[in-house]
């Protein structure tokens, strides 16, 4: 008997078969998301209890149509199922199919059966059958396919126990019949026999798949591949022609007996999908509705998220103050509060916006709308070397580039995916908002124009549009530069509109937030501590001198205790290593209208852009002020000691704004790009081109306006 813990079941099925609902039903919250080795394809693993308390591991394999893969996801399914040695190879398979479109869902099932894997067919969405006027004879289907069949509903959790019982039976009765669904032709048989002799494989269909896919199968040695190539050449094995022949043959076998097992009663009910799509995918109305929806989404993000963001900020401030009063003052206390807690707070504060964005996006996805968006915008996106699916990433980029870049995994064409990754950080994310807010205060008067437009609000919108324009222009340039042999195509199933399943939405959002906290958190924590060190330490003599000088100055102006503290902090930062670096780079940023203080702020805001505001507050001795008005007033008073003019002149403020629109000021994003592209090359190119754009843009703006 197989040991309980080692018994592994894979969930397999076409995309849109409702597989993840079934997975969520079976595992509940007992699931975790990882990666398949070497690729960025999500791997969901969970545990479920079978009858008699037997616990088994459940793997949710990516959706696939066939074992002839067209995407990275489908390739994973082939690799895992065709290699008994693979770490994820299952002992048995639950095949999930959409009962209302069964004739489209059985191809992969027959292939898996030929691989000799024990399997159960779960007829998902069976709750919809009566409404659609379809009746399925489960007995006939089960007999013809030679496997157990269970009608279920992943949405309502119907018949899950019956499904588990069938899976339990598989554990002890692990044969799936000997007869092959597809009988290979004489040529295929000959190739299979020769390969089996050479390589010692036993399963016929597995060997046939190896003959088709050997070039990209990871479990074959180079020697194996040479042998297979030689045999295929000698036998004149035309893989594409044989693939089509095999696939057609499978349809020819199962279509007749599906006709016997499925009864359609009366005409198909007119689905709301057709009516909805008349409007939602309309040539003119479609895009307008989409933009309107996105406007609502962003409105929701910024208004709803403001409250929880306030709570999180207050919470971290409270924690910081409590620690400061309870731990003896010194570098330990400072490292904890200004380094670690400030860094963590900087990550956590974005959780509400990211959660709200993904609640809305995954609701639209669950309902079936996002597939339409891909269809509507695919052509327009192609002009810029992007893909219809890039829209989702670009919209998400409005909250945060990290989950946005991770969402590009669904783009199967490498070039289109790469370009999407490269330009997404140009979309203004929520971390830029505090920076924009304070700088627009200097650059643009708060005045109403044309009746009801606030000039500052218009400037805000202008910055967003500038980011979007830059993203599309850069995409176009990348399209011209990058070369690829890979063919680009779009074959997209448009699922029927259905009310979203809240459990699925919840689990998706939970996973996105977790990924953001982990990915951004680990980088920001390290960089925060590093930058804290740079800003807190400096050449010992200079630091002491700066502090003493500040105290003398404070005494002569009879400043209060808090003001003295702020002044000391400002002078120490000036003398620190960060201050030295700021002064060192001043010549490079001077043409853009920046002084060394802004240099320090730009440097420290590599952790996250909003740190710019905090650093400026410290440098202008208002470190203890919490509201932006105080910071704004103080910065407005700052004068250049050489010229006597305000430091934050209109030219400098605009120049800084342009800088923050374009600059790649986010180390976490770079870390995620490195992981998603699996190389240092792309994040470095991204950093270089965005910084170049920022430097050049600021330079031009400053030189024109000054």
């Amino acid at each position, binding site marked *: 008997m197989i040991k309980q813990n080692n018994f592994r079941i894979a969930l397999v099925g076409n995309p849109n078969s409702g597989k993840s609902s079934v997975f969520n039903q079976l595992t509940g919250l007992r699931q975790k998301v990882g990666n398949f080795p070497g690729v960025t394809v999500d791997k969901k693993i969970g545990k479920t209890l079978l009858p008699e308390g037997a616990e088994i591991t459940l793997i949710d394999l990516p959706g696939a*149509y*066939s074992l*002839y893969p*067209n995407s990275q996801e489908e390739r994973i399914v082939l690799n895992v199922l065709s290699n008994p040695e693979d770490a994820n190879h299952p002992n048995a398979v639950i095949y999930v199919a959409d009962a209302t*479109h069964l*004739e*489209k869902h059985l*191809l992969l099932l027959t292939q898996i059966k030929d691989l000799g894997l024990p399997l159960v067919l779960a007829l998902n969405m069976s709750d919809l059958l009566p409404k659609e006027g379809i009746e399925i004879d489960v007995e006939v289907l089960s007999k013809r396919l030679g496997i157990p069949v269970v009608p279920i509903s992943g949405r309502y959790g119907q018949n899950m126990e019956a499904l588990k019982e069938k899976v339990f039976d598989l554990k002890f009765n692990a044969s799936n019949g000997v007869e092959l669904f597809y009988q290979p032709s004489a040529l295929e048989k000959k190739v299979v026999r020769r390969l089996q002799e050479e390589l010692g494989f036993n399963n016929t269909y597995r060997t046939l798949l190896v003959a088709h896919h050997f070039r990209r199968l990871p479990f074959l040695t180079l020697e194996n591949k040479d042998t297979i190539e030689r045999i295929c050449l000698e036998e004149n094995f035309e893989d*594409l*022609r044989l*693939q*089509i022949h095999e*696939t*057609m043959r499978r*349809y020819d076998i199962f279509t007749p007996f599906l006709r016997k097992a499925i009864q359609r009663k009366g005409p*198909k009910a007119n689905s709301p*999908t*057709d009516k909805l*799509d008349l409007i939602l*995918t*309309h*040539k*003119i109305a*479609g*895009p307008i509705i989409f933009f309107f929806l996105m406007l609502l989404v962003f409105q929701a993000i910024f208004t709803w998220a403001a409250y929880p963001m306030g709570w999180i900020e207050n919470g971290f401030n409270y924690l910081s103050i409590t620690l400061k009063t309870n731990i003896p003052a010194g570098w330990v206390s400072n490292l904890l509060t200004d380094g670690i807690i400030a860094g963590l707070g900087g990550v956590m504060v974005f959780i509400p916006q990211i959660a709200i964005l993904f609640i809305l996006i995954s609701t639209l996805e669950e309902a079936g709308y996002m*597939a339409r968006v*891909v*269809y*509507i915008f*695919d*052509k*327009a996106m*192609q002009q810029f070397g992007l893909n219809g699916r890039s829209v989702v990433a670009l919209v998400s980029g409005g909250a945060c580039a990290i989950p946005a870049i991770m969402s590009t995994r669904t783009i199967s064409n490498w070039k289109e995916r790469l370009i999407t990754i490269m330009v997404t950080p140009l979309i203004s994310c929520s971390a830029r908002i505090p920076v924009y807010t304070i700088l627009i205060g200097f650059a643009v008067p708060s005045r109403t124009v044309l009746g009801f437009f606030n000039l500052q609000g218009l400037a805000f919108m202008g910055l967003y549009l500038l980011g979007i324009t830059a993203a599309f222009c850069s995409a176009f340039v990348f399209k011209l530069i990058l070369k690829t042999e890979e*063919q680009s*195509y*779009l*074959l*997209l*199933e*448009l*699922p*029927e509109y259905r009310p979203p399943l809240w459990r699925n939405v919840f689990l998706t959002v939970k996973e996105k937030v977790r990924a953001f906290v982990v990915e951004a958190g680990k980088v920001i924590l390290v960089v925060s501590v590093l930058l804290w060190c740079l800003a807190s330490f400096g050449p010992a003599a200079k630091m002491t001198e700066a502090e003493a000088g500040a105290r003398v100055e404070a005494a002569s102006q009879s400043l209060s205790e808090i003001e003295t503290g702020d002044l000391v902090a400002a002078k120490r930062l000036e003398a620190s290593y960060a201050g030295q670096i700021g002064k060192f780079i001043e010549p490079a940023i001077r043409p853009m209208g920046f002084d060394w203080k802004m240099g320090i702020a730009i440097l420290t805001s590599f952790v996250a852009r909003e740190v710019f505001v905090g650093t400026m507050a410290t440098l202008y001795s208002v470190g203890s002020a919490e509201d932006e008005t105080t910071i704004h007033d103080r910065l407005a008073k700052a004068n250049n000691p050489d010229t006597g003019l305000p430091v934050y002149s209109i030219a400098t403020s605009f120049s800084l704004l342009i800088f923050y629109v374009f600059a790649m000021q986010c180390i976490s994003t770079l870390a995620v790009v490195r992981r998603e592209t699996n190389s240092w090359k792309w994040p470095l190119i991204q950093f270089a081109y965005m910084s170049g754009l920022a430097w050049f843009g600021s330079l031009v703006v400053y030189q024109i306006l000054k």
Partner: protein
Amino acid sequence: MNILPITNFKKGGSGTVFEITNQQMAGKLIAMGLLPGSKIEVIGIAPFNGGYYLKVDGHCLAIRKKEAAHILLEC
């Protein structure tokens, strides 16, 4: 009886798949259930002169114009 690529059809047009002229495309389309004999209706054409929204045996599928050109319908 006419045999024409999908790109010659307007919104609302329909026919039966006669042939898929590109082998590579055929492999992908057949796996998704679009094969010779399938009944196809053109539900819509995307904005910006883009892809085709098809109903294939009662099942909705979107493809690009380039791919649609490889599918010959009989009507």
